[in-house]
């Protein structure tokens, strides 16, 4: 047999041992608990950090090599996209609303994930998770950067791409939904962070975000998004594996960890599911060419795949979170309720919405036979009728928000889809409102944390969200208009897609690309 020229000197397992464990050292001039002060306050007991092993056994040298290869592939495609008017290849400029939502709502979270994993890597006493968290931290900053680079190609031509990460994530009423999710996780301890992001978001929910989103982008001709999406997603398998290892590790280290872990799983499953309702509208309403319905994606990636996971975790005593019963009801309603709210509030959003046309409503009826015709088609018909008379309806005010998930109070009671669900808690003499039993439960468990939530709509009406020098006593003062100015939103970015400059420009440029005049 020929000797292979590139025969490795060390096997994978040996190399991993040398380049993780082998690089650790015992502290001598400071006690270990002073060096890792966050390792114990959450109550998680760890007896042997060496039991934590990355199943991919990825070491830093290999990491750099493969990440560099991913970047080369990505930027070659982005150059081709820019050089060949790739933006005209999409099915319809309506599709860009989904991309705007991604850039403003998700890309800033990548940056938060970068910071959070850097902190987790610093705070874990074990060298295995430290190395894995370090790699994930670098992955996440790469995701933020490549998404901003890729989508800057759309910013050259279309509205609404200009201020997502710089101003809007911290100010806009609907972007506080994803932002608060990460703020909540980052202000917890390192173990809760790992359950929130590593396990709940990366393992249980990420498939619902990235896989349909990227397949949807491919289906709608968006080469830039597919490419950064897949490039990011190639890191995701490693992140998911880290999340799963982490939970297994905590449960195997000490039986006392079980109730703490179960509480975090319950909390973060619900928090994550609430954030993903934004993705449900994307799949059911925002993609001109649809891949599958939200309900179908939920059934494949949550019910089947999540079910397999929870079957497996049952041996540790982990139970399926209680909120899943509610989710089984919600999957038939959630995208419709949220899209109706977005449609009637897009005068105050950085993206366009539109009423589904007849063909789209038939698709929705077929995908949601139990609910669409009964509850939602009549409301879209009513909105369409008004729009046809030139009276497209927009609500004049902004909605009340849930104190925990920060989603507008728009979802309905589990047993009555015609009644908005409100829950109320009292803490230190003040009333706080939440959108569901799930969020109320989270609030009641840590009220001191959630009373500090910065709720954009409330801040606006308290007068804290206007440009400097604004005079709210001036004649004809419009608080929402001033708020949008503060959010760096221009009138061109808002409202219905019908009649927008995105619509006009896309039609004109696409026409110019196929004709000589």
């Amino acid at each position: 047999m020929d000797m292979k020229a590139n025969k490795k000197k060390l096997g994978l397992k040996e190399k991993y041992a040398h380049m993780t464990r082998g690089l650790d050292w015992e502290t001598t001039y400071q006690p270990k608990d002073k060096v890792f002060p966050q390792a114990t306050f959450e109550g998680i007991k760890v007896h042997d950090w060496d039991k934590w092993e990355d199943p991919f056994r990825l070491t830093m040298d290999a990491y750099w090599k493969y990440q560099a290869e991913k970047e080369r592939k990505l930027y070659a495609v982005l150059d081709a996209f820019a050089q060949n008017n790739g933006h005209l290849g999409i099915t319809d400029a309506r599709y860009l609303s989904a991309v705007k939502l991604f850039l403003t709502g998700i890309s800033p979270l990548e940056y938060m994930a970068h910071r959070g994993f850097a902190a987790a890597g610093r705070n874990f006493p074990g060298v295995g998770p430290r190395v894995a968290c370090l790699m994930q931290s670098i992955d996440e900053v790469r995701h933020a950067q490549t998404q901003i680079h890729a989508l800057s190609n759309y910013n050259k031509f279309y509205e609404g791409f200009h201020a997502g990460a710089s101003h809007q994530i911290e100010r806009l009423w609907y972007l506080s939904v994803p932002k608060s999710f990460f703020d909540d996780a980052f202000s917890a301890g390192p173990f809760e962070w790992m359950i929130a992001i590593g396990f709940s978001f990366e393992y249980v929910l990420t498939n619902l975000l990235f896989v349909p989103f990227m397949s949807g982008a491919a289906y709608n001709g968006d080469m830039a998004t597919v490419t950064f999406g897949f490039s990011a997603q190639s890191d995701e398998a490693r992140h998911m594996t880290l999340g799963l290892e982490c939970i297994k590790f905590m449960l195997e280290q000490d039986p006392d960890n079980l109730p703490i872990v179960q509480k975090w799983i319950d909390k973060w499953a619900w928090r994550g599911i609430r954030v993903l309702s934004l993705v449900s509208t994307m799949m059911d309403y925002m993609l001109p060419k649809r891949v599958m319905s939200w309900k179908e994606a939920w059934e494949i990636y949550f019910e089947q795949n999540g079910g397999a996971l929870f079957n497996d975790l049952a041996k540790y005593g982990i139970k399926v979170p209680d909120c899943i019963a509610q989710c089984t009801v919600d999957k038939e309603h959630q995208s419709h309720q949220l899209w109706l709210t977005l449609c009637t509030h897009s005068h105050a959003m950085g993206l366009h919405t539109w009423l589904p046309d007849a063909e789209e409503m038939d698709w929705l009826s077929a995908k949601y036979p139990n609910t669409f015709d009964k509850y939602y088609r009549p409301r879209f018909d009513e909105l369409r009728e008004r729009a046809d008379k030139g009276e497209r309806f927009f609500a004049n005010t902004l909605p009340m928000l849930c104190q925990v998930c920060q989603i507008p109070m728009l979802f309905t009671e589990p047993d009555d889809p015609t009644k908005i669900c409100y829950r109320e808690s009292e803490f230190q003499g003040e009333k706080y409102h939440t959108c569901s039993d799930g969020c109320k439960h989270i609030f009641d468990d840590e009220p001191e944390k959630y009373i500090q939530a910065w709720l954009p709509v409330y801040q606006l009406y308290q007068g804290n969200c206007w440009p400097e020098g604004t005079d709210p006593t001036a004649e004809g003062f419009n608080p929402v208009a001033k708020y949008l100015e503060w959010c760096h939103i221009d009138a061109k970015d808002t409202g219905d897609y019908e009649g927008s400059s995105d619509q006009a420009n896309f039609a004109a440029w696409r026409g110019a690309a196929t004709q000589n005049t």
Partner: protein
Amino acid sequence: MSTVFIAFQTNEDTRPIVESILADNPHAVLDEQPAMVKINAEGSLVIKRESIEERIGRDFDLQELQVNLITLSGYLDEDDDQLTLAWKN
């Protein structure tokens, strides 16, 4: 038994990889989606370095899989010769 899966970008790098997986796992089912190929299998799935090398005619490091990987499900174990995905219950 629960299903494990692995998904790759659809491209020329992954075509021989997918072929090897299907050959080594007769119980696996191919699911082709826009720009993505997903392989589902009851219980477990194994990816063998040698089978891929036979098809591509060069040495292959299983860690190269990471470049085109999209998602997976199940517990993973990787060494120099094979990568397995399995549910343990």
